């Protein structure tokens, strides 16, 4: 589904991604781990189309279609979803109005009619129940004054509403308490199908106990330097990144 070939990307003239190769198939869960500043969020942003980053080499393809030149909204319409590490506060726009706009703009782009109001309400109710989100959140300004954990839960609620093909969860676990982690992980698992795929960026093994990855990759200094099965995450938890850094140096 997702094919990344030799991806290089710069921000403000500085190279952050230095030749990433990654292939994700439908139905798979991939975990990306790596030290702070290694380029994980950058990779996520580049896939989602953030124009702050300039692709200098390589390609990103979703279902055989190159994304490189597409605007963020077009990628979203193709089925890309990014759960932000730092969700942005949007004062004055309620969660509900934001969600309605996002869904209807996506439908418009796909040549569909706007979603009827009662269907929309039903869906909002269903998905907010799935993530155990209190109704009163939905009429609050998007992310404004939300706690760290509430913001993350709200991201997964949006994912549930939009039902993407490819979801990238950037440190969705950070800031979640233990109960919330279970709820959010359960939400993600319930949304999983044979047709869609998930990339989970995390620092902690704990999330991977709930959302079990098929592949684990280590991103170091802008490159994927090691890939393995879910046991790689356990090994990292135990030993940290030094041994990998040494391996790479050799």
């Amino acid at each position: 589904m997702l094919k990344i070939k030799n991806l290089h990307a710069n921000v403000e003239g500085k190279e952050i991604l230095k030749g990433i190769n990654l292939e994700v198939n439908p139905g798979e869960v991939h975990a990306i781990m790596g030290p702070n500043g290694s380029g994980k969020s950058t990779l996520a942003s580049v896939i989602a189309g953030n124009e702050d980053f300039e692709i200098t080499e390589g390609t990103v393809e979703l279902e055989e279609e190159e994304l490189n030149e597409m605007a963020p909204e077009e990628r979203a319409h193709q089925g890309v979803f990014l759960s932000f590490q730092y969700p942005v506060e949007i004062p004055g726009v309620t969660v509900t109005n934001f969600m309605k706009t996002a869904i209807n703009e996506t439908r418009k782009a796909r040549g569909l009619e706007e979603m009827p109001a009662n269907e929309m309400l039903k869906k909002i109710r269903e998905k907010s129940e799935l993530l155990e989100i209190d109704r009163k959140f939905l009429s609050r300004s998007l992310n404004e004054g939300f706690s760290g954990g509430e913001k993350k839960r709200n991201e997964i609620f949006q994912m549930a509403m939009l039902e993407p093909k490819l979801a990238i969860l950037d440190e969705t676990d950070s800031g979640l308490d233990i109960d919330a982690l279970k709820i959010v992980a359960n939400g993600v698992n319930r949304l999983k199908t044979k047709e869609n795929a998930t990339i989970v960026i995390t620092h902690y093994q704990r999330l991977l106990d709930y959302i079990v990855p098929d592949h684990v990759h280590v991103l170091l200094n802008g490159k994927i330097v090691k890939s393995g099965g879910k046991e790689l995450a356990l090994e990292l938890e135990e030993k940290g990144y030094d041994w990998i850094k040494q391996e790479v140096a050799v």
Partner: protein
Amino acid sequence: MDLKDKLLSSFMAFEDTVDVNLPVHEVRTEAIKNFEAQGFPTKKMESWKYTSLKGLLKSDLSVFPKKETTLEYKDVKKYFIHEIESYRIVLVDGVYSSQLSETSHDGIDVCLMSAALCKPKYRLIIENYFNKTAEADGLTSLNTAFSKEGAFINIPRGVVVDKPIQIIHFSTGIEPSLMLQPRSLVVAGENSHVQIIERHQSLTANATLTNSVTEIFANKRAIVDYYKIQNDGEAASLIDNTYISQQQNSHVSVHTFSLGGKLTRNNLQFFHKGEHLDSTLKGVTITDRKQHVDHSTLVHHAQPNCESHQDYKGIYADKSTGVFNGRIIVEKEAQKTNGFQQNNNILLDDTATINAKPQLEIFADDVKCSHGCTIGQLDDEAMFYLQARGIPEKEAKALLMFGFANNVLESVKIPQLKQRITKLIAQKLGVDLGFDL
């Protein structure tokens, strides 16, 4: 002959159309002298520094329309908030349209200024209120001199008006360029409550210059909510002078939505005559294509224990210019005043300009006054966040702008009006967001 001379010399002809024996005519003759002495404001005056009327004050402006036109309701229905029951005072090229209006003398007076100025039963009210709070600057004096028609609203003590009152001024383009001088008076008696929606609308591309004066008196514990929809055509300019006098425990709010028009100047002045009252001044301004919108506000705190709240949001693009001149005066007697002023501006591109100038003149020592003024751009991170959710750039911008203006929109108390303004804003931004605020 320039416009000033033309106006001065047409005053005699104007006198043929009114009853010069009434006491109110003395007010007019006084005013024409005032106008003669002061003339039109120029950019040399501090309060007109950023707004020039030069291009508008052309001698070919017709000061009286020569003929009358009638309008069919179905053709102008869209300019009314027709989803609700309302009283209506409709003027077409400055002339009352009985066909489009729905006035009342049933417990309240919702009618014409011309009637109020000449009928004996209103003489006392006119004596007590007419031109009693308006300033005597050149433009207001000009309006006073030619005051003849407009809205007259008189709400007796204790009456809660059952539906909003809409005042609409149409100009039909019967003259290539027309000057209008509507004059309105609102008197809200003790404990009364009234909601008013006002709109100026030109129906063709012919130029209109409106120099409007409205006086509002809120007696003890009265509640007055006044909404101004300024969404006129590209050749229409408006100088709106609104003066408000408040007695103790009254609540007056004025919301101004400035979306259309060529040049708009809002002189909005509040005068406090009693304690424990509050004044609210809010506005949303969205301009493009060389439009010019100037908000000059004044809240004159002259009594203790009063509050004022100002919140103006402006979004400017494409060679347009905004001015916000917000003045708060707190007199020595006005202890325990709470005066707040918020003015936030977004410049969408670097051809747009905003001149923002808060002026606080505080002579009392025990007061809480604050003002905040910001000038910024749309946030890139927020844009990416919205776009990453499938919202295209134009719609994402619009959504951020709605969010930015939301505080003001939210305080509109008539839901259908709020919906209409939301639609007008969406129209202005060229989007259909598919939700109601």
